[in-house]
């Protein structure tokens, strides 16, 4: 692997700009027998909470046109099991670990960050702020710049890790939220998380999912993600990691041209667990042909003609 794909994201440096998105690649270890996980730019693990969570009532997934809904309910093994059992395996495998965390209060976000501060072998922390804040009537942290800045600032105060904050497309004003997290000390913005949708089972005449609504992902949301990355690129100076519907090289190029310095691949992992490595090879070939490095593509679509 030459250096054309080396990616610098503020304090974080990656071998290549391909990160597998949280919730779509487990904890990474499950794929060790299938994919050379150490070669990935990084793995954002399934969202970790203080306590283990069993998840929501099934059915938890449904397919939509060029996309899918999920209402997994952030099922995860909890921080203890992750730190004690999973992290050692990830260190042995040489995976570049990005720890995705979520909580329903600022205090819990801070406690998670504080505890990960002691853990060896973590490349970055990613805050999933698309969750209801129980102390704010369940209004989720991701909808306003203020709420997002509050949790970002509180975590920034206790962590020395590169700090990523993951934005929700349901934000009232995505640029406002982006500015909020930047001013509060985030190093990197990752976007976009899923947007809520519903599928109705016309035979049962009820919502398909046990939880009724689920987060939509996949190619269907790509134009939304590219548009929002394009807008946020003009609103902030910190690097952006784009995602939402990436499933081929062309999608990667669109996100980079819009302003993403790196990308995350989510739903596409289900169909092809090794897709990020394939896309990484394809991007390298693309850059070699043009004798450029991937970084040269970032934000190019903003240039005046």
């Amino acid at each position, binding site marked *: 692997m030459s250096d054309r794909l080396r990616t610098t994201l503020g304090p974080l440096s990656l071998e290549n700009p391909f990160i597998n998105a949280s*919730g*779509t*690649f*487990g*904890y990474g270890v*499950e*794929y060790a*027998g*299938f*994919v050379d996980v150490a070669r990935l730019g990084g793995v954002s693990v*399934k969202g970790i909470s203080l306590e283990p969570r*069993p*998840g929501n009532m*099934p*059915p*938890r*997934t*449904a*397919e939509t*046109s*060029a*996309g*899918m809904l*999920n209402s*997994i309910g952030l*099922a995860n093994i909890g921080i203890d099991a992750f730190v004690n059992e999973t992290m050692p395996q990830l260190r042995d495998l040489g995976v570049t670990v990005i720890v995705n965390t979520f909580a329903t209060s600022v205090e819990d976000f801070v406690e998670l960050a504080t505890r990960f501060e002691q853990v060896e072998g973590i490349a970055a922390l990613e805050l999933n702020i698309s969750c209801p804040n129980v102390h704010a009537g369940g209004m989720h942290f991701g909808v306003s710049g203020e709420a997002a800045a509050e949790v970002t600032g509180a975590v920034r105060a206790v962590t020395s890790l590169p700090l990523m904050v993951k934005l929700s497309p349901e934000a009232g004003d995505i640029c406002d939220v982006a500015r909020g997290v930047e001013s509060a000390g985030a190093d990197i913005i990752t976007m976009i998380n899923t947007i809520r949708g519903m599928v109705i089972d016309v035979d049962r005449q009820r919502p398909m999912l046990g939880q009724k609504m689920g987060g939509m992902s*996949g*190619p269907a949301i790509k134009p939304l993600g590219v548009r929002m990355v394009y807008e946020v690129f003009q609103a902030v100076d910190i690097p952006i990691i784009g995602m939402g519907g990436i*499933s081929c090289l062309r999608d990667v190029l669109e996100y980079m041209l819009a302003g993403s310095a790196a990308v995350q691949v989510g*739903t*596409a*992992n*289900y*169909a*092809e*667990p*090794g897709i990020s490595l394939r896309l990484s090879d394809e991007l390298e070939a693309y850059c070699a042909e043009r004798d450029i490095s991937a970084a040269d593509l970032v934000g190019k679509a903003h240039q005046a003609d």
Partner: protein
Amino acid sequence: MKYLRTRISEVLYPAPDHALLRFSADQPIPAIPGEFVMIRGDWGVHPVLPRAFSLVESGDIGSVLVKAVGPGTDLLAGMQEDDELVVFGPLGQGYEVHAERTPVLVAGGVGVAPLLFLARQLAEQGRKAIFLYGARTENDLPLSEDIAEVAELIITTENGSVGEKGLITQPLVRVLEEHPYAQIYTCGPEGMLEAVAKVAAAADVPCQVALEAPMACGMGTCKGCAVPRPDGGYKYVCYDGPVFEAQDIYGTAS
């Protein structure tokens, strides 16, 4: 095999709306009957998810029996020799074969796939299974000739067009009377599995059922394929199963 981009080496059409897809694996596929693979073709952006299929054969050649029931299986059933596939597996927990108990295999519709694999494996070990195969009509009985070669085949159809008219549980009751020291291995529609489990429980015969659930990853990572446990909490079809002991799913109540 684990995970590969391969091409379809042969397509057979054992029944209307059914296709048997054969593909060559880079390395032999060390699979146990009941284990499955996730498959997706190069069909662009819709549908996005791969589909789960029980292995019918393993070895240098893998094969799956596809019944067209919706967008994904329609596309797969329409594929031709040389078309590209992404396949990964074998995945999940297969059937645990009991060494002494008389093997009684109960298949419903496309549930025949993993059980033909099992019947062949038993035959190789010199054991002839009793194979109960139920379907709606004679058109829903793919691979029955192959079964007849390796097992004692009993067929039922709901319309009586072939075999005994009615549901598969009728002959099952008789078979269990003749063979009380049996082990049931079953795969098929939800309703049939539950009925078979009831009969098994009543006859006090152990029963292994292969479940289905909508799946995204097939690898135990997405947590999508949850099924509630009778004792609370969830089991995951793709890695706790797809094969379960009947009572772990339906409780001992049944």
